[in-house]
């Protein structure tokens, strides 16, 4: 994948966390879930990620706890390996090479040392046909083991991982495929098959979708396409089996799960309602409106916590009294991103379509969704084939104080309903509904200027701003005028202006609202794109094959440019030294550049351009081209003939969206090929919704160091001891309180040391400055309100006071003594911890591991 030695393409987070059912650790403190090639360990109480188990080279398809040791976890992947991890420390213990891509992984308490895997059937040429095999784990000392002993258990397994399940502590296994249910007893090696009729009388659709077996009873629950749940009993006799039917879901039952005690059955489907059925009783409880449709349900070992995975890349942690306790939200990805990738200028977050009817604000640095903004503000009905509002356009003004969104409905209907909304950033209505731990994070983050918990307030709603679909929307680039231009397929473009507050007649309304200022047309052609020049003095609107240049102040048509064969696809002005150029791409695979001073075509090339993007901070332009089903990237300046950077075979398929994200601090990298990445970073979204980023080597180094910090091994501790002996004091005291340290390490971007060190430095600085001038740095740092209860809570928890106390004593002797004491204590602690870890791993591993695996 990597061609150039300097610039690298990395996949940057945002992968799906709802592929496999999440697993809760035995003590209910951690939640493990598969996320792309990784297994992520989250804390169930703080919702932050604690570890990343890294090692698979393809998508992780299943995770289960090791029945022999509950602190270890097996993960299976499509790369044909099963890996065993210690998730509390984030260390890979063993790798089992199977050789086939694994679809599902199952283990059972009864069958120790056997992994049940769903792999493609060998003998059959049809690759879609799957079979269940049992793999005996060989007991060897090597870290990487090849497993050859595979014995087939059941053929014809459904690819759906929810359609297989163990029953009664592993005595039998139930599998459903199509209209068939197979129950296989291990003792008598005999499968029982049950068929349901195909008839669709009274709207019945009997196809099986999921299976779950009662842990104590001989009872199998199956979910069906028409929303029925059947409880099968007495199935070890072929003839006399019975089933009872539970029916609440109105469409497909996606997943079923019994609690470990077997008292309740949980079911979830497309309507995103968690239904808790009382086993042996005819009562049920429901928990509605959880988010996207439920894809997986899992229950912790003691039954106190449930988790549900949702189709909108979310995991919800629910207590057994049906109260949501935590939500882990990844980057929501639908089939397509209708709104382009947009950067919120205020929080520097990536903004794109989120949940249906929402915009999501996603932090690229933290790989975490910051918040969702409800645009449509309507109840979303989870029903297939229903035509609902979707956010299709979003744009921010230069400072991020205004947001304009377009939502539309009516994909299939002839008359579309379009709404244009204007939002104001409201600084007073910031969200403080955070838990203590989160506020603590926010304190840190506000010092690093990464995150603002912001919210937008609706200013104006324009119903039917255009008669047909809106094709593009852009804000005036400078802050003097707040103007939005929209172009639509009804043949006109409109300029919207924020009204003046001096209007004395409007005393009743609060604040200025938006109104239409100008409607422009050009020869009944359909406008496709619009773009302002960097200083806002020109507006370019492309009407099919013609580009028109307007003066936004007088609305005078200045000139028209028409040359290219084919309609204009993308349009953008050059910036800075190249501001005299206007670039456009056409549907006939042309990239054209006009000189606006001479109003003539400067140059044009014929390449199959899919996307043209301009860097807001430099002259650079990025062009993605599609050749032989592979995307190439060219970065160039409009005034120079040679491209600055070329990346061949970036990915398979088309790049759908891309954006230059301005950096917080420009890199001082002077290598020629990566010079263009100094001011801003390029992100792109591929056809299969992978978010790719272009990074330089320097950045990667810092990334690696960040990962090291992430892993939180003892090595890091030791490093800290060497650097600042006092910071460890702080670390040790705070870490048992809440699991925050890894999070901070992740947040911290540029500094490899933990933020505590940073803080410590500040304290030291203040100490020095206090002798001279009184410094008001305290007020500058803490941006949260002083009186807030939550903040007070945090303050009392953080041992800053101790630190300050330590430093404020002037006597150096005392200081030295305390330092020595602390160092000794810490060393003892660390040694003890190392020893305990080592011994625990020794106890837990079936074989004696090599020294390298432990550290």
């Amino acid at each position: 994948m990597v061609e150039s030695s300097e610039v690298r393409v990395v996949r940057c987070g945002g992968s799906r966390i709802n592929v496999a059912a999440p697993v809760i650790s035995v003590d209910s403190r951690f939640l493990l879930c598969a996320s792309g090639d990784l297994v992520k360990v989250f804390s169930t109480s703080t919702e932050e990620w604690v570890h990343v188990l890294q090692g698979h080279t393809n998508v992780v398809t299943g995770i289960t706890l090791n029945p022999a040791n509950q602190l270890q976890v097996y993960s299976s992947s499509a790369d044909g390996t099963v890996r065993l991890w210690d998730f509390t420390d984030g260390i890979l213990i063993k790798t089992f090479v199977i050789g086939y891509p694994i679809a599902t992984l199952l283990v059972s308490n009864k069958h120790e040392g056997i992994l049940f895997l769903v792999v493609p059937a060998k003998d059959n040429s049809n690759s879609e046909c799957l079979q269940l095999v049992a793999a005996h784990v060989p007991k060897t000392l090597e870290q990487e083991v090849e497993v050859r002993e595979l014995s087939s258990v059941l053929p014809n397994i459904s690819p759906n991982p929810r359609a297989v399940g163990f029953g009664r502590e592993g005595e039998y296994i139930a599998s459903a495929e199509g209209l068939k249910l197979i129950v296989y007893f291990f003792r008598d090696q005999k499968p029982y098959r049950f068929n349901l009729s195909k008839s669709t009388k009274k709207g019945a659709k009997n196809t099986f979708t999921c299976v779950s077996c009662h842990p104590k009873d001989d009872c199998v629950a199956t979910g069906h396409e028409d929303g029925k749940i059947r409880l099968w009993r007495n199935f070890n006799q072929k003839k006399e089996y019975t089933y009872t039917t539970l029916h609440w879901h109105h469409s497909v039952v996606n997943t079923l799960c019994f609690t470990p005690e077997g008292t309740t059955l949980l079911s979830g489907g497309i309507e995103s309602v968690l239904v808790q059925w009382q086993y042996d009783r005819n009562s049920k409880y429901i928990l509605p409106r959880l988010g996207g449709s439920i894809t997986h349900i899992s229950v912790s070992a003691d039954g106190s916590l449930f988790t549900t995975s949702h189709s909108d890349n979310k995991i919800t942690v629910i207590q057994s009294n049906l109260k949501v306790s935590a939500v882990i939200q990844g980057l929501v990805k639908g089939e397509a991103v209708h709104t382009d990738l947009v950067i919120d200028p205020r929080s520097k977050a990536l903004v794109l379509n989120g949940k249906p009817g929402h915009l999501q604000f996603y932090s690229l640095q933290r790989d975490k969704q910051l918040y969702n903004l409800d645009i449509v503000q309507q109840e979303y009905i989870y029903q297939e084939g229903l035509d609902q509002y979707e956010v299709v356009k979003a744009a921010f003004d230069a400072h991020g104080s205004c947001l304009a969104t377009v939502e539309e409905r009516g994909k299939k209907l002839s008359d579309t309903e379009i709404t244009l909304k204007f939002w104001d950033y409201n600084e007073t209505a910031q969200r403080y509904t955070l838990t203590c731990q989160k506020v603590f994070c926010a304190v840190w983050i506000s010092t690093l200027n990464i995150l603002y918990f912001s919210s937008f307030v609706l200013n104006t709603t324009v119903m039917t701003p255009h008669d047909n679909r809106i094709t593009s929307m852009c804000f005036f680039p400078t802050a003097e005028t707040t103007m939005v231009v929209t172009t639509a397929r009804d043949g006109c473009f409109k300029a919207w202006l924020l009204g003046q507050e001096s209007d004395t007649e409007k005393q009743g309304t609060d604040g200025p609202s938006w109104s239409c200022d100008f409607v422009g047309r050009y020869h009944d052609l359909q406008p496709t794109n619009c773009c302002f020049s960097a200083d806002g003095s020109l507006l370019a609107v492309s009407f099919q094959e013609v580009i028109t240049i307007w003066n936004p102040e007088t609305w005078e048509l200045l000139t028209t440019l028409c040359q290219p064969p084919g309609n204009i696809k993308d349009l953008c002005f050059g910036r800075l030294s190249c501001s005299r150029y206007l670039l456009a791409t056409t549907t006939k695979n042309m990239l054209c550049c006009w000189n606006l001073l001479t109003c003539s075509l400067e140059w044009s090339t014929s390449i199959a351009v899919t996307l043209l993007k301009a860097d807001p901070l430099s002259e650079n332009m990025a062009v993605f081209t599609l050749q032989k089903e592979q995307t190439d990237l060219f970065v160039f300046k409009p005034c120079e003939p040679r491209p600055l950077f070329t990346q061949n075979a970036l990915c398979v398929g088309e790049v759908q969206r891309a954006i230059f994200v301005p950096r917080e601090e420009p890199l001082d990298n002077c290598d020629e090929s990566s010079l263009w990445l100094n001011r801003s970073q390029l992100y792109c979204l591929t056809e299969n919704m992978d978010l790719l980023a272009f990074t330089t080597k320097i950045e990667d180094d810092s990334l690696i160091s960040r990962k090291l910090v992430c892993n939180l091994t003892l090595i890091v501790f030791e490093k800290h001891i060497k650097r600042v002996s006092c910071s460890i004091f702080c670390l040790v005291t705070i870490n048992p309180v809440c699991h925050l340290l890894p999070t901070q390490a992740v947040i911290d971007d540029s500094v490899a040391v933990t933020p505590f060190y940073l803080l410590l430095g500040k304290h030291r600085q203040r100490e020095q400055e206090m002798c001279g001038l009184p410094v008001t740095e305290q007020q500058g740092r803490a941006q949260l309100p002083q009186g807030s209860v939550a903040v007070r809570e945090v303050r009392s928890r953080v041992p800053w006071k101790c630190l300050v106390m330590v430093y404020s004593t002037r006597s150096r002797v005392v200081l030295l003594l305390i330092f020595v004491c602390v160092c000794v204590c810490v060393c003892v602690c660390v040694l003890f911890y190392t020893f305990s870890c080592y011994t625990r791993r020794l106890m837990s591993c079936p074989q004696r591991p090599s020294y390298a695996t432990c550290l």
Partner: protein
Amino acid sequence: MTAFKPTRVPVIPQLGEKVTEDALYWRSYKSPVQIKEFGAVTKIHFSPLSPHNYAVTASTRVQIFGPNSHEPLRSFSRFKGSAYSGSFRADGRLLVAGSDEGLVRLFDVGGRVALRQFTGHSKSVRVTSFLSDGFRIVSGSDDLSSRVWDVSTAQEVAALGEHSDYIRALATSSRNPDVFITGSYDHTLRVWDARLERCVMKMEHGQPVEGVLLYPSEGLLVSTGGQHVKVWDLLKGGQQLVSLKNHHKTVTCVCLSTHSNRLLTGSLDRHVKVYSSSYKVVHTFDYEASVLSLAVAPDDGIVAVGMTNGVLSLRHRKPSEEQEVDGRKRRGPSYRMFVKGRNYTPKQDDFVVRKSLKHHLKKHDRLLKSFKVSEALDSALEVGPAVCVAVLIELERRGTLRNAVAGREEESITPLLNFLLRFITDPRFSRILLSVAHVVVDVYQQVVSQSPVMERLLQRLLECLGREIDYQQELLQVLGILDTLFASATPAAGVTTLQTCEIALNVSHFCTRIQIKSTTTPRLRTWRV
């Protein structure tokens, strides 16, 4: 788990004029009480003292009415000809009136006989007033002169004759007892000083002056005459500030309200207009005859208008809202007031557990939440058009409009059909209501003939839509004519959006569906300049 989002009821644009605070204030008068006099009511004057009795001059007498009774408290009818301009002194105890025979009479409000008679005018005295010291009277007459009289001696103090036509308007200054202003049919306004016995300032109105009014600040002077109302700045030496032409007949009278000094003018065109401080008309009262005299009670409690047909019309102010609130039965404190520990303030280390707020949903939202679409529609129909349309849009979005409409009996479909009948031609709602009508026709196609009620309602709906089509067609024709006119008049290009076209298209589509034999299908064209 997110909360249920209630149905969004959009703020529908209000048709007609904008509701301002002034409009609300002036609208809150009751419908007028009418008292019939013998002749045209030429002057109404409120006593400055509470209880604000008012003198009404009509025909040959001056009557005094109380603010609450509609019977005269006193009547002065010793005039041989018509009486004019009965006005109170500042203490409300003396009343002066002119008459046709050239006499000025002075009455005690408590007594019945005239206290003094001032003789000297040769023709009828149309305007009289007290000067602000209360000891002198000024009068203006048709003999082109205005005179100042001493009350105690009944002697003429001064005679001022510079006007060249009848004097029909008079205003006295309340700050300076020697200054008064007269307006005459010779189109001029003159400011007089009784000490100098000559005119000190002259202004040209341009039409015969019918009324003069001095603002309480005495910096501004208002004169009416012809169709114009003019405001003059006395401090700038009689410079004209504004000229208003809001009436289409002669403006006969002018007065000020107490509430933020609004100017009111009455005219022969049967309207009384209220002006804002920037001289824009904020409210208009309509009367059945030409207005001759106008007065507002000092507390704005009554707007009294006298008309040519001899009717005195009184509008009383509605009691204000606050009194209603006081009158309403107050609810006792709620249960939560008595719950212990309510006033407890948390200490520094306390962890406050907030009580989760309970969101109350409207009835239709509650029903929608539990997917009871038909009942939700029923409950929304009882509320109001905006809510009902919002619910219909919501049902359409959910794809359950057909379910909500179907399966109804005669009595439960009637409210829906009535709603459609009332609002289907409203351009704000017609988009959704037309599709609702489509669904109704689709669902009940088979059974319409079995129910006479429904058949009648559908027939009416049909007629209503037919009328609407004709109307739209006419509008489009007018629009076409206008557009050609505009196109020839203005060189700059502008674009007209024709939302009405769309509606007309929809309506016509619907009508053809339910088989109207429309002879002319509207030919719709988009007009563009």
